[in-house]
């Protein structure tokens, strides 16, 4: 990414004037009066852009206020730098904060969708019809910033389940959005959350009413399409008493040279006896072999087990992104609530991943389990960073954490930063971690039986990651296993 360095000795008066002139012109260009037909906001971020996004989406006054509050907070904050990753500074003024795919009218059925877009989806293997017919998965596909197709909506509606895009939810269910949006991840939580809260373009909203067990896996496919567009997705899932939902999130992104920023926020709320299972397969473009390009994935994901006996489970398979920086967390507030985190993170070439979880035990008899498997190859760096916090009143809290790292090649790194803070003497907390490589004897054993080295490595890695893969829903597990093998192609031998 280009950074401009101020060099006073080289600038003369004329240039100064030029810059001044440009700035004046720019301000005019970026002003609040923007062509309403525009599908893209101009580059850069200002209060006007926030107003533009909000106006573009026909949002009510309270939503705009909420965004502006976040924006003003963001201006006061500085980018965090504690993660174990290095990257050139992001120029937040060089990003387009809103872009919608070119469409004339809002489609009522799949047939009305632009065939170009449909073709891209098919390439990615997300045929809407097929999914609809064969797998029974309802898909809320988000391309760039606007939701273009929602299936199975009616079927879900019969059960009282709301599954729609965030913009729709703001229009149609303002009372739920006002109650829950930002209740788990406050706008001031961190730099990227404030940024997302100010400019988020769309996302998914899911509401499971009391006593309903969602009959199918809900799923959203995110994809970055237009160049230079940062994606700022916002997901909110609320599960009322005695309900259950399993939610899938998958990501693919095409080849790009310039780094792209992805700063999403995901909030989960589980009330009494509710259970939310959130699975992710993340396969953003990781950059090429020399570490050029790739997505910056700075995501804040957090769930709260608000009611007693509730459960939130995060499962993630991370194979993509140039930089991954995310910590799906659970606040275990309700008594007897359960938090789980299962993760496989694979880094190859120059990828960097700093990922892990936070389990905050607040209620009594709360339990959490962390299983994290990191695989590093090439020149990549893979860090696990996790926090297990047991509060003063979290009697009989129980945590078990296991983080294993596997190193393939001698130029990569594996790091573990577990933070464990316990303030209760009835808590039992365990943490264990190992780092190793694939044993030569294991490879030899496979070779002996006619399995070539590359296949053997894929086999061993799938075995290493099995504990996590088993947690994925069927449809994802198959895809994820293939992904692991593809991600590590050419890293052995």
């Amino acid at each position, binding site marked *: 990414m280009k950074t401009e360095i101020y060099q006073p000795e080289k600038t003369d008066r004329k240039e100064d004037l030029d810059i001044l002139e440009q700035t004046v012109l720019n301000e005019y260009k970026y002003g609040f009066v923007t062509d309403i037909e525009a599908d893209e906001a101009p580059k850069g971020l200002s209060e006007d852009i926030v107003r533009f996004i909000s106006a573009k989406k026909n949002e009510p006054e309270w939503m705009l206020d909420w965004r502006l509050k976040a924006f003003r907070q963001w201006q006061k904050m500085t980018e965090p730098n*504690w993660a174990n990753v290095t990257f050139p500074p992001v120029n937040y003024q060089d990003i387009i904060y809103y872009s919608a795919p070119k469409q004339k009218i809002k489609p009522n059925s799949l047939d009305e969708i632009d065939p170009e877009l449909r073709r891209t989806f098919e390439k990615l293997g997300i045929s809407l019809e097929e999914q609809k017919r064969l797998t029974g998965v309802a898909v809320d596909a988000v391309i760039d910033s606007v939701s273009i197709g929602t299936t199975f909506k009616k079927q879900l509606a019969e059960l009282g389940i709301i599954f729609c895009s965030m913009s729709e939810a703001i229009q149609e269910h303002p009372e739920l959005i006002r109650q829950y949006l930002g209740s788990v991840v406050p706008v001031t939580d961190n730099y990227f959350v404030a940024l997302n809260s100010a400019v988020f373009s769309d996302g998914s909203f899911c509401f499971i009413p009391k006593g309903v067990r969602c009959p199918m896996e809900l799923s959203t496919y995110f994809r970055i399409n237009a160049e230079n567009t940062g994606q700022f997705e916002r997901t909110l899932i609320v599960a009322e008493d005695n309900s259950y939902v399993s939610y899938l999130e998958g990501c693919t992104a095409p080849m790009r040279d310039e780094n792209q920023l992805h700063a999403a926020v995901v909030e989960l709320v589980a009330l009494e006896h509710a259970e939310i299972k959130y699975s992710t397969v993340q396969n953003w473009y990781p950059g090429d072999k020399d570490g050029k390009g790739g997505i910056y994935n700075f995501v804040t994901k957090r769930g709260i087990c608000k009611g007693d006996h509730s459960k939130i489970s995060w499962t993630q398979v991370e194979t993509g992104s140039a930089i991954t920086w995310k910590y799906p967390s659970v606040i275990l507030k309700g008594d007897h609530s359960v938090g789980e985190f299962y993760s496989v993170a694979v880094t190859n070439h120059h990828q960097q991943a700093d990922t892990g979880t936070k389990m905050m035990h607040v209620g009594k008899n709360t339990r959490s389990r962390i299983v994290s498997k990191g695989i590093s190859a090439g020149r990549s760096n893979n860090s696990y960073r996790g926090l297990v916090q047991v509060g*003063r009143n979290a009697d009989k809290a129980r945590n078990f954490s296991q983080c294993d*790292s596997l*190193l*393939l*090649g*001698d*130029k*990569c*790194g*594996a*790091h*573990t*930063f*577990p*933070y*464990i*803070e*316990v*303030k*209760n*003497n*009835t*808590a*039992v*907390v*365990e*943490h*264990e*971690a*190992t*780092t*190793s*490589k694939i044993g030569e004897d294991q490879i030899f054993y496979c070779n002996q039986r006619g399995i070539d080295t590359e296949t053997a490595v894929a086999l061993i890695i799938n075995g290493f990651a099995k504990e996590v893969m088993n947690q994925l829903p069927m449809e994802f597990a198959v895809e994820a296993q293939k992904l692991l093998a593809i991600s590590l192609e050419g890293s052995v031998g």
Partner: protein
Amino acid sequence: MDTISYFKEQLNQLPQTQPAALARIRQEAADAFVQQGIPATRHEEWKYTRISSLFNKGFEWPVNQSATAVGEDQMQALRLPGSEKANELVFVNGRFSKELSVIRSKDLTVLSLEEAAAGEFEPLIAAHLGHSSDYLKDGIHAMNTAFMQGAVFVHVAKNKIIAEPVYAYHITDARAANSLSLPRSLVYISQAAELHWVETFHTLGMQESFTNQVVEMVAEKDARLFYYKIQHDAPHTNLVSTTHIRQIGQCYTYAVTISLDGHIVRNNTHVVMEAEHGEAHLYGLYFLNGNTHVDNHTIVDNAKPHCYSNELYKGVVGDSATGVFNGKIFVRQDAQKINAYQSNKNIILSDAASVNTKPQLEIFADDVKCSHGCTIGRLDEEGLFYLQSRGIPAKLAQSLLLHGFTSDILEKIKLDVIRDYADQLISQRLELL
């Protein structure tokens, strides 16, 4: 006057007659200290330990300290068992006291740092003094280096086994005012030599004390170093104690830290393995009550292949005490065939006690075996029930189990007199429960 301005003034008054090499190291540290100040909890390495507010109490550090009033009778009360057969190094308010110290081994050379830097040991000092600064980038460490006064250099000659252990006493005189002491030493163990080193800390008087001590130890090929640190000072004393062990040849080093008392205690224990086939052991025990806060930070840096290290820290935390553990294992690129193990086990005895632990691995080589683990919990209820069902009262059962838990570390102390002494201290602590 704020803390930094006070110390800046004291810095300016320090005598400038030192050899050039020392003056340069001190000046760099002084700049770093003034720039960084006392670390706040925002500093990642000080996240769980708050020391900045301590300095509001105005610790005094007079530039010209008169020959102290610590006499033989006071020393007598502080002496560790076995002292009649030990070399005794006494530091009073951070400065080495020749009068109180006793050197019994003829192969052990003890010189003031200035004297050593002016003589034949100059290359050793130039090469090794201040090496710990690469690992501790904070104002507290820089402070010790900036104010190096009355520091010592200890040298063990080649092939010599020092049969009599070295007992290093750090005495801070806080009878008149809140007192700060900044002891510093550099220990060099030559090829195939062996040394046992025991360190303790004492405060005289009822005012508060702050001891910020650094010892850097260098071990050559085939050397053997056994280092023990016992912290059993009064509850109004504060301590930051840094032990930086550098293995420059294939050698064997061993360090045990026992922490029992104090207000805030921070131990930085480092082993830097710069030669192949090195072996390092790090053990620690903290058994805390009252408001004591003990923070153990350890670093094992594997820079060369084929090294082995084992680390075990155990803690029993009661009352409203806090135990902190942060262990780091680094494996550098191309440092293959490393075996590095780290474990931290904690028992919390009361409702108000806290344990914060962060066992950390940073690995840049693939052919390694590294593991770390930590547990936090309370005494095994089944074990307690088993003992009680055989007629052992609950209190005694608890104390038996805890004694068993701590003995893992106590038995690592290889000097019999010191082990018995530590065991006795633990037994006293168990009786208080």
